[in-house]
């Protein structure tokens, strides 16, 4: 019942989120032949002094067009679109989950119903989790037929793995926002806190010396490109002992934040 109500509240945001992701994807995919031709002529990226931009430029301007296109998708579909739009959607959806209920005096109404707080949390969380993650898989899957228009193939399994990693990152941000939404009473304050955190992380990412400490280091080109080109098999994504295991870290963060939310909702008073 609460899940149905949550779904009705966020379904339009979910639709807008899909459309934005798709509108960001189509031009960069369709313009690829022109962009690739320009990249072949330009030495701009190679002359830049920033390491990660140089690597990115080198990846998308490779002589092998199929590999270059996979790197281009890693940059545009994941590093740009899902990171930014996914994070924004997570924050937008998550801020209102509990803080808005509290502001509208409906949290007390909900907490007084014969439903456990664990169930309340879950029924609010899972529709949001679906709305935040499903568009990432859907939009990235549509990149396959769009690529056929360019007579290029996108590997389905690798695309799925990259989408999975992006979706878990968005989910971690959603869970963080939900946690803050429980412990902070005003929706605007939730948005300010999580928004400031995200901006700080982006700022750290763009600053060379502290870049390794940014959360966005877990979802950048250096991580997506090897997945898309098949150089990071699935086990490496999930094995933090023998490999980076970044996906496992994101899952662990999501689970931890969910448990913190669970504890917070059990302690909260209207």
């Amino acid at each position: 019942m609460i899940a149905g109500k949550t779904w009705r509240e966020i379904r339009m945001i979910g639709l807008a989120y899909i459309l934005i992701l798709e509108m960001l994807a189509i031009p960069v995919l369709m313009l690829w032949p022109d962009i690739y031709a320009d990249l072949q002529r330009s030495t701009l990226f190679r002359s830049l002094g920033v390491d990660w931009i140089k690597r990115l430029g080198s990846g998308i301007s490779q002589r092998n067009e199929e590999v270059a296109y996979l790197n281009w998708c890693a940059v545009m579909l994941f590093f740009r679109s899902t990171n930014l739009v996914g994070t924004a959607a997570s924050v937008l959806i998550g801020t209102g989950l509990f803080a808005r209920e509290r502001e509208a005096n409906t949290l007390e109404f909900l907490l007084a119903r014969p439903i456990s707080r664990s169930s309340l949390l879950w029924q609010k969380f899972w529709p949001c989790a679906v709305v935040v993650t499903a568009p990432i898989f859907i939009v990235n899957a549509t990149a396959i037929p769009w690529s056929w228009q360019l007579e290029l193939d996108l590997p389905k399994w690798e695309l799925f793995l990259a989408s999975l990693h992006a979706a878990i990152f968005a989910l971690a941000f959603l869970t963080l926002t939900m946690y803050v939404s429980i412990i902070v009473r005003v929706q605007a304050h939730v948005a300010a806190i999580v928004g400031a955190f995200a901006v700080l992380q982006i700022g750290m990412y763009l600053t060379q010396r502290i870049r390794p400490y940014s959360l966005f280091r877990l979802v950048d080109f250096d991580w997506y490109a090897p997945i898309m080109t098949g150089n990071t098999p699935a086990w490496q994504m999930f094995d933090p002992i023998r490999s980076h295991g970044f996906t496992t870290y994101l899952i662990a963060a999501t689970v931890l934040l969910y448990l913190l939310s669970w504890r917070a909702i059990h302690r909260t008073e209207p």
Partner: protein
Amino acid sequence: MSDELIRIAGLQKSYDQHEVLHDINLSIHRGQLLGLIGPNGAGKSTLLRCLVGLVQRSGGELSLFGRDPATHSLQIRRQACYLPGETGVYHQMTGARFLKFALGFYAKQSLQLKERLLEQFQLPLNQKVRSYSAGMKQKLALIATLVPDVALYLLDEPDRGLDASVRFYLRDVLRTLKDQGKTIVLSSHHLSEVETLADRLEFLLNGRFVSNERLQRARAQLRRQPRIRLRSGHTLPDGAKLIRTEPDGILVVETDNDPMQWLQSFPQGAVASAEVGVDRLEDLYQLLLQDEVTPHCGVGDQTSAAEVAGGDA
């Protein structure tokens, strides 16, 4: 099985250093209707929230249906329906959808009562709740609270925002529920209306129950305090002491004898209006607060008591 449905012993609730409820003791039996009266901030809502397990007590013992709300809140909420003091309805829903949502949590509902309330309240259920007035939202919340067929109803100011005719109707509905053996705890600011309905009345002041003896003493004192408005050119006759003059020109006086007899001593046409024997809650609060600060003060100390009450409010 014991007939005692709610048992409270030495209940305490504090927020940081501020004690909201202090040593509350209460026992409510099945089928009883308890009226909770008290000024804003007295702790009525906190007490109801403790009962339904929405807030955790700081001390004392509490049980409903033989269970502790701190550990068995869900089981209690399956048998109890709570109406929050602040009307909580979803503005983006239509009235019909809100009712479907709110009532969907309960396995058993009184459809007869639902039809009766819907017919009486005449709510535009197909419209969004955001277009409702405050009174209409309260009516909607009342339907959502009273229609579930549960054993206990905890109602925090159910008459908030309702006009007199609806309040009287609500009183009839609550009486019907009581006759059906339901237990009801309700807080209100309408002393006389709750008094006609409740089996018991508890007056909460600064987080403590006021003893019945103290309450009756204060009410008896109030009954000796008529409120009159004199026509110009007339003064108060002997046999009464002026306590205060209110901004609208009403004189509150205390008589030595029966106020009705005293009023008859006025020359004809001197009194524009008079009110005798009415329990005005604000006056009652002031008297009880005064009693709390200076337990044995005389009539002449009324002004300082009013200041104390005003300062507290």
